């Protein structure tokens, strides 16, 4: 290990000096942590292949966006993932109708309008990335959200009855503001998309919006894939 000792001598020759200078030490520490960070965070933005847009994927309409807000508010992402890995067993489970041809797993292009991403890190309940193709009945979702045990005996999901109460009716003007915010960071909403918010949201509860969001998940890519087949 002679060479290793020499390498260490050489290195500690510098560090011994830095340890006596607070500014130098802090500066070199900052450089050490920045190198990896910059290498990983910057290039993806300039590589066009990082997120190839998928032709058919459209931004969430006012009702679906309101539903996404509800999904975030309730922290659904703490138990449900939205990212299907390229394993046969995962594709079989989360694309039972084979709506996506051979490729039932998640692609970067599906998430281009997701601010923030909601892939989650724990799959306590099933994955929802392609939920529209797994359970397309709005009525089923309503029953499930009001009491999960009614549709799946033994489920440990919390019940969300208040989402459908009168007090949960959504304020359309707020959603229009949310759309304007998203427009500023690159979601291509048209003025028409925003002005149609009040009609889309009229009398809708948080629960209705959440269901609309769930039925949007995976729909655009499934339609594209079906039209190609």
């Amino acid at each position: 290990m002679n060479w290793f000792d020499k390498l260490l001598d050489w290195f500690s020759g510098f560090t011994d000096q830095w340890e006596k200078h607070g500014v130098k030490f802090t500066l070199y520490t900052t450089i050490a942590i920045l190198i990896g960070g910059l290498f990983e965070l910057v290039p993806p933005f300039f590589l066009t292949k990082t997120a190839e847009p998928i032709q058919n994927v459209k931004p969430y309409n006012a009702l679906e966006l309101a539903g996404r807000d509800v999904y975030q508010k309730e922290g659904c992402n703490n138990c449900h993932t939205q990212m299907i890995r390229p394993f046969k067993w995962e594709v079989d489970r989360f694309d039972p109708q084979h709506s996506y041809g051979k490729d039932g797993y998640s692609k970067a292009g599906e998430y281009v309008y997701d601010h923030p991403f909601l892939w989650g890190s724990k799959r306590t309940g099933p994955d929802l990335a392609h939920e529209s193709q797994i359970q397309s009945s709005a009525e089923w979702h309503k029953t499930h959200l009001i009491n999960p045990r009614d549709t799946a005996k033994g489920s440990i999901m919390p019940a969300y009855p208040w989402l459908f109460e009168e007090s949960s009716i959504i304020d359309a003007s707020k959603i229009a503001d949310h759309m304007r915010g998203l427009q500023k960071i690159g979601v291509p909403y048209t003025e028409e998309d925003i002005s149609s918010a009040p009609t889309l949201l009229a009398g809708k509860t948080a629960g209705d919006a959440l269901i609309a969001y769930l039925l949007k998940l995976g729909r655009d890519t499934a339609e594209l894939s079906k039209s190609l087949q």
Partner: protein
Amino acid sequence: MSSSEQKYNDTIVKGFLISGLVWGLASMLVGVWIAFQMVYPELNFGPYFTFGRLRPLHTNAAIFGFALSIVFATGYHTVQRLCRVRIWSDKLSNLHLFLYNLSIVAAAITLPLGLNQSKEYAELEWPLDLLIVVWFVVFLINYFGTIFTRQEKQLYAAIWFYIASWVTIPILFIVNNLSIPVSWIKSYSVYSGVYDANIQWWYGHNAVAFVLTTPFLGMMYYYLPKHIKQPIYSHRLSIIHFWSLIFLYIWAGPHHLLYSPLPDWLQTTGMVFSIMLWMPSWGGMLNGFLTLTQAKEKIKTDATLKMLLVGLTFYGMSTFEGPLLSIRAVSGLGHNTDWIIGHVHGGTLGWVGMMSFAAIYYLVPRLWDTNLFSERLANVHFWIATLGILLYIVSMWVSGISEGSMWRAVDETGSLKFPNWVQITETLKPYRLFRGIGGGLYLSGVVLMIYNVVRTIINSGSGYKEIDPRIGLKEGKTA
């Protein structure tokens, strides 16, 4: 003692220690509660106390309430001693303590209300993020002010680890939290989809690195040698493991995103650097262990030393398990399962928790100038905490590996063996119940500690006397 009180500001250390005890108790209570929610869904009380809203409360209170309080307490304590000067500004210290606790209280209110950004460990909405930036800047000015006015030329190893944490945390926090506010209570991340995922896990993994690892290594480098009155085993090992640890850690984030649509080169980089991290991590662990061997005959009787030993053991174990899980094939089985929850809690309950308890038991008698109320109670705390951790992680290992195996199990025809999700959930229930019980044991240890600390503080001022429990005395009490 009184001369040291004039020389150093210990009030701020006491303040952060007490915040640590309060937020530790709160976070672990919520943790046990949500553990049982995973078995008994009736424990979800809507709309404010459902799992989805309480889980971020648990993680935020544990990481930023409990762990960070202990980090600041020990940071203020060590920097004054290692620089041989009083903290630069008492006023800024108090402002830091006040604004910090204000932000945690606000977190504890807003998270159950469902106000969150949905980014793991970065859930707080933008006005709170700004408040955090303000008190962090206040703290940075004060800390570096102390370093620049120091009386001791050489910066000792413990301080390196604290400095690395202070410079990295704000960079991570600000970059990941950039968002567009759409109202006072709602914002959207400026990044989208796959970019957002990449930045989130660069942040998420390095929160583990620079909030839950480096400051605690700093604690180890100061309190372990101080407690056993022996120098650290190897200064050279400190140098090499410090620089390689902070350089390598920052690259490891993408191992959270294996098999995702993140570019392959980035996933592989994350995986390779995670495996390389095993070396500096174990370098730190070995330096601790080899230092400990210099006082091995004390371990039998000394609760603080036992906690340091078990803390280091769990550090070694989690930093072995981490690189293992970041190998693609292992991630294929473990990702998204209870195994990860077990892995994280091996690190947090074992390493962060035990090191924090050791620091608390070291500091409280000295700060309040009296002896610990009961050394025996501290030992009981140690044993039930250790038992609790083991019950927790073993049940999560079994649960996680069962979960991953059941997801992928196929019959002879190649179709899924367990297509019904609830069937898997039912299988995992007993393990999840044991997890809750393990967490409950750990929590009861914390309650004992708080009782012990409160009784110690009541005795304050009676004079701290160092006692070697090996010679005759049954308990470390003074007459």
